[in-house]
């Protein structure tokens, strides 16, 4: 298959988005295709456009999807769905020039105790896992689950590791984690099913700050090793 066809498929407007009402006041738009930054940038463009709609109360950008929460049930959901489809097919990708965060990580040790599991799954040494982890630049795709938690895109597939079958019961806020193909930093202390590989003192959310969340969608993150404990 040549690359031209592949590009056509990526922009194929016949691969229709899935749009569904969730109850009477929310609508979920799901983009067709893979989880790529190109798709995510189109979701951000859609988010920007939807923000301007007077009937929208809240928006929840997800991973290649967007939930619209309306102030009242839409009179004609079909009309909103058509508007979304049109916007999806016509809007250009939205490039966000986010902040760059350089974050020091204390890799391994008790607060990164799943490093071994990541090594076992990837077949790589701890040193390799650590250098691969801080060798990539990550992008904040969406914020959610817990206050201030950012879903990071950019994890090297070599160290992607499935979520744990038994979650850690009391993972510390600030734990540097891997869940499947996603990376992140835990925002709250509590149960967590992602694999811990290190720790940072960064506080991701402070309700009394403006803005309360440290990360915003489109921000970029680079990790560097502050220390390594194997």
């Amino acid at each position, binding site marked *: 298959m040549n690359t031209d066809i592949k590009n056509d498929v990526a922009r194929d407007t016949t691969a229709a988005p899935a749009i569904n009402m969730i109850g009477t006041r929310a609508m979920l738009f799901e983009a067709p295709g893979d989880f790529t930054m190109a798709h995510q940038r189109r979701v951000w463009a859609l988010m920007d456009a939807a923000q301007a709609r007077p009937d929208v109360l809240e928006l929840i950008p*997800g991973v290649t999807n967007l939930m619209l929460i309306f102030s009242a049930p839409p009179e004609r959901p079909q009309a909103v769905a058509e508007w979304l489809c049109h916007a999806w097919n016509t809007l250009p990708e939205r490039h966000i020039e986010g902040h760059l965060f350089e974050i020091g990580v204390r890799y391994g040790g008790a607060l990164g105790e799943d490093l071994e599991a990541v090594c076992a799954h990837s077949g790589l040494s701890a040193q390799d896992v650590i250098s691969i982890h801080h060798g990539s630049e990550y992008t904040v795709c969406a914020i959610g689950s817990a206050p201030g938690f950012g879903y990071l895109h950019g994890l090297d597939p070599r160290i992607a590791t499935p979520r744990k079958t038994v979650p850690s019961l009391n993972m510390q806020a600030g734990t540097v984690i891997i869940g499947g193909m996603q990376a992140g930093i835990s925002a709250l202390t509590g149960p967590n099913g992602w694999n811990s590989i290190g720790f940072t003192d960064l506080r991701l959310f402070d309700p009394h700050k403006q803005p309360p969340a440290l990360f915003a969608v489109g921000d970029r993150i680079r990790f560097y090793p502050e220390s390594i404990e194997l």
Partner: protein
Amino acid sequence: MITILETSALNTVQDLGRPGYRNLGVGTSGAMDALALQVGNILLGNQIDDACIELQTYPFVLRFDAPATFAVTGIDALIELDGRTVLPWMVETAAAGQVLRIGPPKAGARGYICLAGGIEVPVVLGSRSTQLRGSFGGLDGRPLEAGDTLGTTGTTLDIAGYGALPPASALDAVAEAQDSKVIHLRALPATDYALFTPEAQKRLWETAWRITPQSNRVGYRLSGTPLELRHRVELRSYGVIAGLVQVPPAGEPIVQLADANTVGGYPRIATVIEADLWRLAQARIGMRIRLHECSFAEGVAAMQPVNAYLDDLRTLVARYRSSARCRAGMKSGAKA
């Protein structure tokens, strides 16, 4: 001011919630039974989103350190003011030093102690609701403990002794309750409904799902014959709202509620309509719920009786208060 004398786990300060921050991962929180809170606030002449104490565990005992007019809504329970029985859904005035004791509910699960003027805690991100996961809002972001004090406005109303017909009596359920242990709720099929087997789809509507002890303000875990997908799916994280019914791999559904995470990843089979969420909030562990499929139009129309009930209550409260003032020889038009 009020002082909490006795409480057990997970009683919190709540208002109508904190919309507008889900894009930062902050769930809405807020009263599980938003209708009961609104009734309390209307009875007391409050702002509709004034904060109250939401009770989930009993007994709960507080002392009024200043005179206060109050109403307990949401439940039917033995409620005593210095040992004198007072009725739920009724406006009462307490003198300074009086002790209010609320026993376990005879009906309902979540009680709302509403005070004239509301509970005074700082507004954080636009709301007084306790955000338990984020540890902010309400009283220092945590459940109430014995010895805690909460600020009140010291407002007392000149007229008390009137009340509201509880929603459970005023509003018809979707199906006739033949068994008081089964709660009937309307729901719309959601995004992944078609991914479930025809048998699972049928079973969703026909099962009397039991509410398990793993149920709380985040969501209710239901128990029943598991619902199978036609084939396994791996979903990307998407936005979650209260009422969403998800099916984790084990096949027993979860209904997301007021403290739900802002995003989730399990298949979505249905959404309980907004008009019926208060019924779910008042369902107790061990009770069963039956879901009834409804259309989008039916789901929207279902809010009409709820809104009409609240509008009628507003009118009745205003009329009662002005006529009671007349009879008492008070000037009409005085502060409501």
